[in-house]
């Protein structure tokens, strides 16, 4: 019988955020007023302040022209400027080709050949030596080392915002699980503290002042960055924009951790706006999803769902502005939060003063809600929203009319993933389509919320949700959080095929790791499951295309 390999059970801080954190950097951070004001006694033993600073923070030294964060990248960390200043080129922005974006590497021929030969009959085989090498750097590596070639030329003609020493930024992407909204770079050398979002979350849990400050910053940054992206506000002068922005309200409905109640089959749907109420402003969804519905018979009928960028109430408000409102001036539909939703409310007065007068009749007429579908056709929307499938960007949908149940997709997946498939060919069925148990790479990946090490994260390049096997400690928080049961915990095996155990007394417990679909990251040609289906039955789709 093969002997079990034994390793220390992985813990949160086996891998520090910054491998280069020196004692002087540690002292530098501990002496910052932002850190000094924290009371170390308030922090729990499991996550002490010193540990958070040493393992969840790092000090980055940027050279002139170096990019700190890049627009469109998915970031898992926030920043505090310790020395120097950074710049944001807000409008028209830095050209894409100058941002130094590098695509993620693909697997070479030899590793692919080895995966073919090496899989054998032992699934989830790992080289355990790599788990023992601590100090891996996990920062925002995607942007590090990328330099702007000609900073003065880039600055010229740009709407530049300067971020002075002491500015905190990046919290929007880190906490909201959304892409970075702007690119930030150093004009002159600067020193910046970077904190991974798990550490930020822990500090916010303990310290009320940090919590309030970050939340307020989150709201104001989100409001400003988002309003600038709205097409209906694009023609406003800077003065009018500032006035309108000051009147807008940033509202949040539902919690970041909406999956907790959903997993307990108690899906709350807080009402954002109610059918029949007076519309006091235009609602724009900034993040998350909301159900658009109206009373129908003795129940409520779902018409559609709204996602980021969608507007609510514009039809009523614009027809009122045009003097077309024949009946009472009230909302025709209800809007409720499907999980967590950020909404920006633009008051009616601001619309009448700054937006409607600048719009042509044709533009105003564009704002109409889609026609209602018959009940039988609308049923799929009710089903999908009840199951929160609108979250999926790469949902695995199997057309059962074509599926031969041959499991070629499962075998293809296993062939590329340590001999163990990363999905199950089963799941809820609607009509002839099955939503299989495969990671959907959600727009709002709630699985990331509780991860203590940041092992589950978004790929900076593609935005897909992936797990870093090296830093996963097997706590199963992500698997328990996933509302769709798409993350599976598996015991790993050593080179000899025997289960890897921890070094605890009594023979130890198996070391487990979280596994899920990674869209075959590193393999050419996209997910193997799609490529492997001989019958064109399997597809990975954004939920908006579900009925296509």
């Amino acid at each position, binding site marked *: 019988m093969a002997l079990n390999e034994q390793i220390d059970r992985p813990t949160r801080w086996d891998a520090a955020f910054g491998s280069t954190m020196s004692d002087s950097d540690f002292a530098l951070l501990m002496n910052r007023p932002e850190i000094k004001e924290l009371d170390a006694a308030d922090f729990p033993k499991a996550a002490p302040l010193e540990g958070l600073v040493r393992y969840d923070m790092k000090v980055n030294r940027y050279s002139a022209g170096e990019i700190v964060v890049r627009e469109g990248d998915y970031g898992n960390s926030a920043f505090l400027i310790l020395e120097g200043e950074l710049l944001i080129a807000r409008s028209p922005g830095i050209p894409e080709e100058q941002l130094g974006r590098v695509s993620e590497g693909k697997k070479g021929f030899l590793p*692919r050949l080895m995966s073919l030969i090496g899989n054998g009959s032992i699934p989830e085989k790992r080289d355990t030596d790599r788990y023992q090498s601590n100090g891996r750097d996990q920062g925002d590596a995607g942007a590090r080392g990328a330099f702007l070639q000609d900073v003065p030329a880039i600055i010229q003609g740009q709407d530049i915002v300067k971020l002075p020493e002491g500015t905190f930024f990046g919290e929007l992407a880190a906490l909201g699980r959304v892409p970075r909204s702007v690119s930030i770079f150093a004009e002159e050398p600067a020193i910046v503290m970077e904190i991974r979002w798990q550490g930020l979350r822990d500090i916010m849990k303990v310290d009320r002042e940090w919590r309030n400050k970050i939340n307020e910053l989150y709201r104001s940054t989100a409001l400003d960055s988002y309003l600038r992206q709205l097409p209906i506000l694009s023609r406003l002068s800077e003065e009018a924009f500032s006035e309108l922005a000051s009147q807008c309200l940033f509202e949040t409905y539902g919690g970041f951790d909406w999956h907790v109640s959903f997993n307990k089959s108690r899906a709350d749907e807080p009402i954002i706006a109610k059918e029949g109420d007076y519309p006091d402003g235009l609602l724009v969804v900034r993040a998350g999803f909301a159900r658009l519905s109206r009373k129908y018979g003795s129940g409520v009928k779902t018409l559609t769902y709204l996602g980021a960028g969608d507007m609510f109430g514009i039809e009523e408000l614009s027809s009122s502005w045009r003097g077309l409102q024949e009946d009472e001036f009230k909302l025709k539909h209800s809007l409720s939060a499907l999980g967590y939703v950020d909404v920006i409310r633009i008051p009616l007065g601001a619309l009448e003063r700054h937006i409607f007068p600048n719009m042509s009749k044709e533009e105003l007429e564009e704002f109409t809600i889609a026609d209602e579908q018959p009940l039988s056709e609308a049923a799929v929307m009710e089903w999908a929203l009840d199951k929160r499938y609108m979250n999926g960007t790469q949902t695995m949908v199997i057309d059962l009319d*074509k599926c*031969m149940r041959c499991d070629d997709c499962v075998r293809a997946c296993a*062939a*590329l993933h340590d001999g163990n498939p990363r999905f199950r060919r*089963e799941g809820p069925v609607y009509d*002839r389509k099955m939503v299989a148990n495969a990671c959907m790479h959600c727009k709002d990946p709630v699985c990331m919320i509780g991860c203590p090490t940041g092992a589950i994260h978004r790929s900076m390049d593609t935005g897909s949700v992936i797990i870093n096997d090296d830093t996963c400690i097997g706590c199963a928080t992500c698997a328990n959080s996933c509302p769709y049961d798409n993350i599976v915990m598996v015991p790993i095996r050593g080179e000899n095929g025997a289960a890897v155990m921890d070094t605890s007394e009594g023979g130890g417990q198996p070391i487990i790791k979280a596994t899920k679909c990674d869209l075959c990251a590193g*393999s*050419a040609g996209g997910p193997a499951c799609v*490529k492997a289906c001989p019958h064109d039955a399997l597809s990975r789709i954004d939920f908006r295309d579900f009925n296509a």
Partner: protein
Amino acid sequence: MKNFFIRLCVPSLLSLIVFLAVYFWQSYATLSLGSPREITGWSLVCVIVFLMLFNLRKKLQAFNLGIVKIWFALHVAFGILAVAFFLLHTGSIWPQGLYEQLLALAFWIVSLSGIVGVYITVTFPRRLTDTGFEIIYEKIPEEIYNLKNEAEKAVTDCAKDSGEQTLVDHYNQTLVWFFRRPRFYWSILFGGQANKAWVNRHFEPVERYLSNVEITYLESLKQLAERKCLVDEHYARQDIMKKWLLAHVPLSLFVVVMSVWHVTLIYAYAL
């Protein structure tokens, strides 16, 4: 189905062009006293090798060798092309000589199993979807075991609640046969309704001997039997969907091996 035939269009056109090219080539060879059999023979070998590559492609998932659905469409179209080349090569359905007849028999069985496979591909998934129920093949034994347990619990509870043995006896004498394992395999495959007819035939007669309490249990037993019918349908169809390849693939390999020997013999003695 429509989608499947649309996917076949381009490969079919391609195979038609290949066939016409080979046909005119071998016709020219006949007129110029060349060796037309050699042309059609090697064409057939090439197509057979290409058909075998499909299985290899499915195994090489780590390499980007094209989408399998395109390979599959090409496999079907070139399968038909192989039949056309075979007829062109032999000049008849049944060649002369024992070894050639054995080779032809294997070839026709492989071709027939391929046609059956296409029929299964086009019709069976839809039939399964129409059941409104989905189960993984490997989980069917567990499902049948659970249904049988539930059925036995229902008759036991019935006996306890009613104090009567009628339903227990009927279950032990008749119904247990149905719940024990998958039934009506061939009837289901040929689109029959024998399983549903059997359930109706063996549930209705007992009703007149049961009290109201027992009838409630009979109803729940019938619901279990109806679910068992669906499980049986999945078992029969999924079983064939998986197993037809067990005939098609090994026999294909057999055809390749025999063809190699056939070519060797031809070059050793006939040319």
